[in-house]
């Protein structure tokens, strides 16, 4: 029965990405009555949930401060997602990245 209501899930054409990848999220923000598109570029920490309730968390370093944002995958505000790098990580959820700084916080790129 639950599957049935997934039928009206929003179709989106985002590329596949996993934890460890560096992505840029283009999302719409509304200020008063003006609309503009903002980018958020960072490392994917996790993907969580399924269907209409799926979310993903992106972390970036803004100067010295870590900024994390959680986006619902079904959000109508996300215009597009670009993949900048494919990271090589062993875990599906890389929260250990929060504690690391500098050289240690680098993620090895996936070789194809």
């Amino acid at each position, binding site marked *: *029965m*639950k599957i*049935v*209501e997934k039928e*009206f899930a*929003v179709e989106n054409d985002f590329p596949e990405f996993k934890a460890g990848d560096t992505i840029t999220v283009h999302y719409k923000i*509304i200020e008063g009555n003006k609309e503009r598109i903002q980018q958020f570029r960072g490392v994917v920490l996790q993907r969580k949930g399924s*269907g*209409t*309730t799926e979310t993903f968390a992106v972390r970036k370093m803004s100067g010295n401060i870590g900024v994390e944002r959680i986006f*619902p995958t*079904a*959000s*109508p*505000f996300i215009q597009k997602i670009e993949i900048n790098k494919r990271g090589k990580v062993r875990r599906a959820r890389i929260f250990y990245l929060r504690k690391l700084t500098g050289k240690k916080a680098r993620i090895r790129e996936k070789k194809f």
Partner: protein
Amino acid sequence: MEGLIGKKIGMTSLFEEGKNVPCTVIQAGPCVITQIKTRKKDGYDAVQLGFDEKKEKHCTKAELGHFKNANTTPKRKLVEFTKFQTEVNLGDILNVEFFKNDTWLDVRGISKGKGFQGVVKRHGFHGVGDQTHGQHNRNRAPGSLGASSNPSRVFKGMRMAGRTGGNQVMMINIRVMKIIPDNNLLIVKGSVPGPKGSFLIITK
């Protein structure tokens, strides 16, 4: 109030006008009219609806006869509705489209049982005193139950610890977000009492 019997399927969230809205999926119907009670015969006017299939071997002979009168298969849940405005006949089947013109509904159900709970969870007491300054084991205590030698008893109805949940709860004016007639699904905004799979009474 006229309405239908339903079953809670589960919760999810949907985007509506740019907002992520929590919502509950309810299977409402198909309900069969199993009996029409009249003032002349039964002393009051009501319509009895049946919902959810049941095996014949789990029925008593009296039940089987009752369902046979309405010309249907045995049903698990029977509920009476008074003041049914829609004209119905014995054996008619009602499904979600019954609600297609409604935006606000009331939903009744049995809330989740929580067992024997203290006074903080059960009645929203705040416990006694501070957490620090030498204080111990009073954090979730109820405090005083009343005065001393006058009246030298505890008044009736004093709120204390005990069985919590498992009561009938009615949610008034729940907004209908969407109706899927193919599967008799009703999607409403917010939560609804009871665990998944429990019966609900949905009224207009």
